[in-house]
């Protein structure tokens, strides 16, 4: 069985690459488009800080570190969770019914049949680039502890967002249309997690810490090396638990999925 899983995921990956390379111009344009769309926030923050120097004490390189963690985690995220991100579509057009008929785990199929490798390269590449530039400019000294912390923080960040996708995907079983929920609670939070959380209204800080905990994807991990003054407003513990929040959250979302999948009714005909 174990062997089988590896073989099957390799086959899925090969299929995805084949279908991508069917239209080469399109594949290149797509990667470029993703790269540019993601760079939008960077361009905006660059122009803004050319005018204003810093935002609540964070300069441009410290801001880039915040952004880089968002992109790196997302780059890994869409290798594994694209199927869950687009789950609403799968349910609505009825193709989820096909998945049910196949003799493999639903989550397994959703994960491996949909990996978006090109976008992963676009996001991940941008993330690594920004991370390297900002760490060099900020003169970060890489102790083994810091390296270890960041490895786990990035995995944790992927799992936090994966849990959000899984949770929203599960909601699709009850509600047919959840795109706007995703827009509000995922994409907006993600867009603004590029800014130091401390500048926002207390209510938004609360949401970002306890409800859609994007703060643990980048803000607290970035504080781990930057230790900016605005960290004083939060408990130090947040910094240390950041790598583990994802694991707990993902387990909760998984239980919700297991519980709900029993109630799935097809919308197809």
């Amino acid at each position: 069985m174990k062997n089988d899983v590896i073989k099957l995921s390799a086959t899925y990956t090969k299929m995805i690459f084949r279908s991508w390379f069917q239209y080469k111009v399109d594949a290149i344009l797509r990667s470029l488009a993703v790269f540019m769309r993601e760079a939008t926030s960077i361009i905006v923050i660059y122009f803004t800080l050319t005018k204003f120097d810093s935002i609540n004490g964070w300069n441009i390189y410290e801001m880039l570190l915040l952004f880089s963690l968002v992109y790196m985690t997302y780059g890994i995220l869409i290798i594994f969770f694209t199927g869950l991100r687009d789950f609403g579509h799968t349910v609505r057009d009825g193709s989820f019914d096909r998945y049910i008929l196949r003799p493999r785990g639903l989550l397994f199929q959703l994960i491996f049949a949909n990996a978006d490798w090109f976008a992963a390269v676009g996001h991940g590449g941008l993330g690594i680039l920004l991370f390297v530039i900002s760490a060099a400019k900020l003169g970060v000294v890489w102790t083994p502890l810091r390296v270890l912390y960041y490895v786990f923080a990035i995995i944790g960040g992927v799992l936090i967002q994966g849990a959000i996708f899984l949770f929203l995907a599960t909601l699709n079983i009850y509600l047919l249309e959840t795109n706007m929920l995703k827009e509000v609670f995922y994409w907006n939070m993600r867009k603004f997690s590029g800014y130091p959380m401390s500048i926002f209204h207390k209510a938004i800080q609360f949401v970002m810490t306890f409800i859609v905990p994007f703060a643990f994807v980048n803000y607290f991990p970035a504080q781990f090396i930057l230790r900016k003054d605005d960290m004083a407003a939060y408990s130090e513990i947040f910094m240390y638990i950041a790598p583990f929040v994802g694991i707990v959250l993902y387990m909760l979302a998984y239980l919700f999925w297991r519980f709900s999948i029993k109630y799935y009714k097809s919308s197809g005909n």
Partner: protein
Amino acid sequence: MGLTPYLAFAKKSFLSKSAYRLDHWMGILNTMIRLFIFVEIYKSLYGTREAVDGITMTMVTTNFILSLCLESFFAVDDFYLSSRINNGSIATEMLLPVSFHGRMLATNLGTAVFKLIFHFIPALLLAIFFIGMEAPAGAGNFVLFILSAILGYGVLWSISFMFQMLSFWLINVWAIMTIKNVFINVLSGSMIPLWFMPKWMSGVINFTPFASIYFSPVQIYLGNIGAAEIGMCFVKQIVWILVLMIIGKLLWIKGQKKMVVQGG
């Protein structure tokens, strides 16, 4: 026959919008969240300063409220043509005795009217109540603002129209549309007020249609520019609409000849 069929198309798209209620309320919430967050960012950037380069915090707030609210009702369906080419229904639609482009515009306008009433107005009222913004510089400015906003929608629609015509040559226009929208987002002033762009960048933006979408109406509303400049804004908007539509129509004529319908 006249306008009747187009009114029917507009009405149909108006009604189909009202079917997704939850989606709709979430849309308003979404606009509000984005607004709040932009305002918070600029509050933090301004700190204790009254004004930066003569631009006050309330002017910045007004810019964001107007741009984002206008954005919420400027309905454009970037994939109207490409989806019809991909599923083949374009073949039958072109046989109908109504203009394809007329139908396209009518469908978008139906959505726009729906969003104007049920998205723009509530979002604007909420924003005025919770955030607060400047009143228009005068009654004349207000009327001109509305005119300029309508033309702004025209510019946005024409840009999309022109790019949609590329559907005849590209299998998938998603990438092109995304890149187009990056330019609109960065250069139209809805993410960074154009007052704060570096000088060289403002120079570049002057030669593009992007400032005509949201920023010209905002400038007119605030009374930041004189009569001559207001006139210039209107000329620019009209010229851009004409130029983009003409290019779009030329592409349409060329594209029709080589259209490849896949399936259907």
